[in-house]
């Protein structure tokens, strides 16, 4: 059985004024998974959702739903429901009627409407709130109403456009758990949009990292975190140290004025590359034992760890997350494993990246 529910084939979107918003987007989404579109504001995330929902057309390319081309299917006939960024709840209807809206349109029987709305409200922990006006609900509650309004229609796919961005940090973290759990209970396909990398990493089965209307990289949160394809992704997904380097030969890389052993390969000899080392992979040690010798510039206590900003002799900044404290102004050594060094070719496509990774990547890794 084919498990693909949505497929984009060479989808582009440009507006009359000449702005190109999406450039050749291709992806396949499987039934029942939690997908996240991650990228900075303005990169085209909402546009992708709007094309799936049918609020706007792709300029070129095809969109398939369950194997059928759906470019020309109007929004109200698509098996998709959206949780809008601003929730878009109807202010003239109470909570119950907001949730019942889709069912009333489908002319579902009154008793069934009642049952299904109550069930949906229970699902989002809003049982008993049916008679409230929308204006009487808090931000978090409104967001749940919006989710209930989408799931009550039993769609195959639920689109969520930054639904948590308006909530405060504590509520947001809480809702992240709830949404993830909800998706697993329902077994529906969720397409979740966010510009918050932590949110994406915490919730998704698969992440699409977007920038300037292009998918830069897709994969599981672990894949993307550990093996970012380029400077943009590395920088966007979590804090990282990115420096220029030279790939001397396979498994041998030069940066910060020294040569290091590493686990990457498949580049040309002496190819210019970017090197990424995550702050948590750097360990503080004495200058004699350190692979890098750096001076501590600032130190912040972050609750669980200290965040140190340090500089080496070449002036590269190295962020370090350490459980140990250091002295500001002191010279310290930084130690790391060969696996901590991640090498990125400049301008490598995702397909080439995957191929190279298969050949050279993780054998002696993990």
């Amino acid at each position, binding site marked *: 059985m084919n498990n693909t529910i949505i497929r984009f084939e060479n989808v582009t979107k440009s507006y009359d004024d000449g702005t190109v918003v999406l450039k050749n987007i291709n992806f396949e989404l499987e039934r029942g998974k939690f997908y996240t579109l991650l990228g900075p504001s303005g990169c085209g995330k909402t546009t992708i959702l709007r094309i799936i929902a049918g609020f706007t057309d792709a300029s070129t390319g095809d969109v398939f739903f369950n194997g059928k081309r759906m470019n020309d299917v109007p929004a109200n*006939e698509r098996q998709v429901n*959206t949780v*809008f960024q601003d929730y*878009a709840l109807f202010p003239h209807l109470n909570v119950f009627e907001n949730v019942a809206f889709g069912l009333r*349109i489908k002319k579902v029987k009154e008793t069934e409407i009642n049952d299904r709305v109550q069930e949906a409200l229970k699902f989002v922990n809003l049982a008993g709130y049916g008679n409230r006006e929308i204006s009487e609900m808090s931000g978090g509650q409104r967001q749940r109403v919006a989710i209930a*309004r989408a799931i009550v229609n039993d769609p195959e796919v639920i689109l969520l456009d930054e639904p948590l961005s308006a909530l405060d940090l504590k509520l947001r973290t809480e809702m992240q758990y709830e949404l993830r759990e909800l998706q697993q209970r329902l077994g529906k396909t969720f397409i979740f949009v966010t510009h918050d990398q932590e949110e994406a990493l915490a919730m998704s089965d698969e992440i699409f990292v977007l920038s300037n209307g292009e998918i830069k990289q897709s994969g599981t949160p672990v894949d993307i975190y550990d093996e970012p394809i380029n400077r943009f992704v590395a920088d966007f997904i979590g804090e990282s140290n990115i420096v220029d380097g030279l790939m001397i030969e396979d498994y041998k890389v030069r940066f910060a004025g020294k040569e290091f052993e590493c686990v990457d390969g498949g580049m040309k000899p002496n190819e210019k590359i970017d090197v990424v080392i995550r702050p948590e992979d750097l360990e503080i040690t004495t200058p004699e034992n350190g692979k890098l010798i750096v001076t501590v510039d600032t130190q912040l206590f972050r609750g669980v760890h200290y965040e140190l900003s340090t500089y080496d002799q070449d002036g590269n900044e190295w962020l370090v997350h350490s459980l140990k404290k250091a002295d500001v102004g002191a010279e310290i050594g930084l130690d790391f494993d060969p696996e901590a060094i991640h090498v990125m070719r400049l301008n490598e496509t995702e397909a080439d990246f995957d191929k190279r990774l298969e050949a050279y990547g993780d054998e002696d890794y993990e």
Partner: protein
Amino acid sequence: MGTKIMNKTAKGPLIPYIFWILLFVIAPIALIVYYSVLDLNGNFTLTNYAKFFTPVYLKMTLSSFWYAFLITLFTLLFAYPTAYLLTKTKHKQLWLMLIIIPSWINLLLKTYAFIGIFGLYGPINAMIEVFGFNPKQILFTDFSFVFVSVYIFIPFMIIPIFNSLDKMNPSLIYAARDLGASSWTTFRRVIFPLTIDGVKSGIQVTFIPALSLFMITRLIAGNQVITLGTAIEQQFLVSQNWGMGSTIAVFLILFMVLTMLFTRQKSKGGRV
């Protein structure tokens, strides 16, 4: 002590307002009510009120309501789609401006313009003749009266509807479509209920003045249309029966108040 000061500061600025209301609202109404209970010789009487409930005046009332209703209906039917299209245009404020500007031109001027346009030697009849028909009497018909009135009131209806449409969150329309609503259902269940306040204000500013029209009625409809407005004019200027004229005015004010109550805006809505 605190309340004393509060009272003083709260009431001070109200004095000009109260004065204004007394002079320009309360006093004229009191005068009208006073005249309405006087007969031709200045003696107290209720015959004017009794006369109002005779078939002649009741028919006139009905006719006033009927024309005001027709004018409001056609104005609304034209203004709503226009306002809707306006909100979709690129330079909507400019377009709105272009529609509002004619309403600043003197009413009498516009009415006279229509006399020219609709007249036997006007452009419309010239057109009719081009197509080989005999000139038609357009002026002094109830059609031309309703037409001109609708034309006059359209901007006043468009403004509040435009504002309420413009204020509406556009993602609500997407939400309705997303939940399976066709364009028509979206309009019926979301757009219209959310702009009902604008429609009500529009009805207020059209229906109430339309109820008391007399100048357009006289100039465009001649004596084809007789309403409360023309009756008041008749009583004051021709019959010199100020008592009867005031009585009709009292009822007109009453009808206006009722209309306002009827189109009052509720802050909350109910079910679909």
